[in-house]
């Protein structure tokens, strides 16, 4: 198993490199000229020429990629054209924010989605199942940003319980941090919870029909043990898959939610960078996100081993 793990780790490198090449090429295809976008309203020709020169914008695309890759290998992800700040600094500032939001959202999703899915499967066909399905469907259908704005208007403006937007670092003020993060995490979490609930439900239903569960029941094992030890553990496998995918997406940045709640995470960063044609920032964020995604997938595969011995061979 260690060999498998190491092989997978090595395989991450070509994946991430390919993704970075693909995104680099895509950016170049975007209409619009980064030098023009960043030179300022007056379009001073000297400024434009300087920007072109400094960031190798006149070179062919594979040379520009070479410069970037060379920098990455030295740990230098380039400079944000817009703010003159090294991309690494920007990422270091924003990564904890995005990680925190992602983890909180997924925690809420798991806390709501999985129990609801299990209950829904067990009480299939009853009003409880119906209610859970309707809630899940609403969670999937309601746009995040709309729910976000509504929550702000209700909770912050009308009730004054939580701040309307902004972000406070947990190291500076943990309570304020929770106050600023709870609404966006809730908005994100509820839409993911809906997906988790549906998948848990269908996975549970399938497992509950299986032979070994029938055998366990026939043996007279208590229902609670049947559910928790036999059914649930096996139903978790598809749920882990979905959960990992969702977490990966969250780590790429929840763009709309971050925009609405003004959370300075990856999502906002990458959208602004694309609009400003700030290539280096986009590349940096994509590199981080794709790395995170690939590592999460690896973690998920490892989790399968733990959950289901049959997969270990």
């Amino acid at each position, binding site marked *: 198993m260690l060999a498998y793990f190491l092989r997978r780790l090595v395989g991450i490198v070509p994946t991430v490199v390919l993704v970075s090449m693909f995104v680099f090429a895509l950016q170049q295809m975007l209409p619009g000229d980064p030098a023009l976008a960043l030179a300022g309203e007056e*379009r001073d020709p000297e400024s434009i020429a300087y920007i072109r020169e400094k960031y190798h914008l006149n070179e062919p695309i594979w040379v520009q990629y070479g410069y970037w890759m060379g920098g990455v290998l030295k740990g230098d992800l380039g400079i944000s054209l817009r*703010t003159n700040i090294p991309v690494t600094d920007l990422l270091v500032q924003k990564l904890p924010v995005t990680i925190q939001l992602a983890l909180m959202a997924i925690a809420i999703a798991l806390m709501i989605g999985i129990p609801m899915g299990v209950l829904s499967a067990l009480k299939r066909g009853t009003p409880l199942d119906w209610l859970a399905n309707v809630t899940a469907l609403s969670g999937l259908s309601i746009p995040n940003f709309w729910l976000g*704005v509504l929550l702000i208007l209700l909770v912050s*403006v009308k009730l*004054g319980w939580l701040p309307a937007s902004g972000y406070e670092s947990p190291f500076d003020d943990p309570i304020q941090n929770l106050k600023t993060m709870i609404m966006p995490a809730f908005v994100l979490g509820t839409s993911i919870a809906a997906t988790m609930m549906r998948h848990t439900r269908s996975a549970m239903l399938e497992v509950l029909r299986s032979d070994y569960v029938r055998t366990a029941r026939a043996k007279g094992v208590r229902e609670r043990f049947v559910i928790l030890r036999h059914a649930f553990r096996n139903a978790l496998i598809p749920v882990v898959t979905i959960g990992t995918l969702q977490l990966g997406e969250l780590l790429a940045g929840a763009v709309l939610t971050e925009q609405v709640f*003004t959370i300075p995470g990856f999502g906002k960063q990458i959208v602004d960078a694309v609009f400003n044609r700030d290539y280096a920032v986009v590349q940096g964020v994509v590199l981080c996100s794709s790395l995170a995604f690939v590592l999460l997938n690896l973690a998920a595969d490892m989790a399968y081993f733990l959950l289901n011995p049959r997969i270990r061979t």
Partner: protein
Amino acid sequence: MTRKLSLAVAAGMMLIGSAASAETLKIGLADDPDVLDPDQSRTFVGRIVYTALCDKLVDIDPDLNFVPQLATSWEWSDGGKALTMKLRDGVTFHDGEKFDAAAVKANIERSKTLPESRRKSEVKSIDTVDVVDPLTVRFNLKAPDATLLATLSDRAGMMMSPKAAAEAGAGLGAKLVCSGPFKFVERVQQDRIVLEKFPAYWNAATIHFDQVIYRTIPDSTVRLANLQAGDLDMLERLSPPDIATVKADSKLQVVDVVGLGYQGITINNNNGDRSKTPLGQDPRVRKALELSIDRTALNQVVFDGAHLPGNQFVSPQSQFYNKAIPVPARDVAKAKALLKEAGAEGFSFEMQFPNNPDMTRAAQVIQAMASEAGFDVKLRATEFATMLKEQSAGNYQATEVGWSGRVDPDGNIHAFATCKGGINDTKYCNPEVDKLLDAARRTNDLAERKKLYASVIEILDRERPIIYLYHPKWIWALSKKLQGYKPYPDAMIRLEGMKKAS
């Protein structure tokens, strides 16, 4: 034990008390500033932050007259080729360095020579800077430049500590050191910028806040929600549909002023093949398009009447406005007649516009109005950076676009209407206009300048490379507790005299 405890409690309460009396002003911005270095930055919101951080050589008053700030008096000499300024005594930068003529010289050199400087074209007319004495500086110009004072009232005139600038180079934006009422504390990208009071500021008596926090909240609904919830004291760029809501709120107030810029339709006159259309080539067609638009109705429908209709590159409130050419009313019959005369009935063209809600609505209204006169307008929503590129490359027929505006009228027209103008995307070229505009920037005689610009406006009204539609008003929403805010046409939030009632 009890006594120690009560002493500790008392000390604690004193600390809490002193912290509570620290007055913080929270301002909501609609965008995130870029690099916080006046020589490098290009964003409008950056200038709002500089208003608190950096003093300039001269400032403006609400009527756009120049008033002293770091310079106390100035005079022109040598036929307008030299500007001598007397500087304020006793001014220090945030790092304790003295402000003097040598500092001014160093700042201008930086604007001219720093590779990343975006101010180069603005200070091009300055040839050399002489340090006459520690409190007197002279700018020697290559040719007379009436726009110099306006330039020195903006980013090029912001004075940074030469020591800090020399040490940090292009990295000064990470921790700007100026001499304004507040000094830089910290910045979280796309979240907030925190400034604290600079006790040694020369005009500290007018500053009533200990801390200013600028928060970036791009969504206008959320920005307003923050104000309503009390998390902001003030926000800039209130969305016109929200004006009624704010007016109805007893805790909030609306403040507005007509800005320096304009919004209009820029038409491709001569920039490549796509200009070879009746619209691009025939002024009658352009006049017909203008006559088909009801500016008042457009303003009413899209902006709830919030902005000011206009027809020249300066607003009707400007002293340079040519009163002989007032804003025309809609005249569909005349528009149809002109189109017929030009043989362009049913003419179809494509108008691109930035894909935000306001511009989209405005474009649709223009399309509807123009169709009644016989135009077939095809709309194309374009993302902003792409639109810039298309315009500059000549790949457009008409664009609904504006200009943020400058204090000096030259800034609203020279680069757009002269043959070699840097932002002349229409490629309109009339040597007579060039002559008049160049003359207008070379004389300091106000009456003379007004005459010259009036002549330019006459010519532009005949040839109409750009159809000016309206002048956006700057609209702020403030908590009623905030007193003393004076709106300026340049939209800058000047903190002198502002205070929060308890």
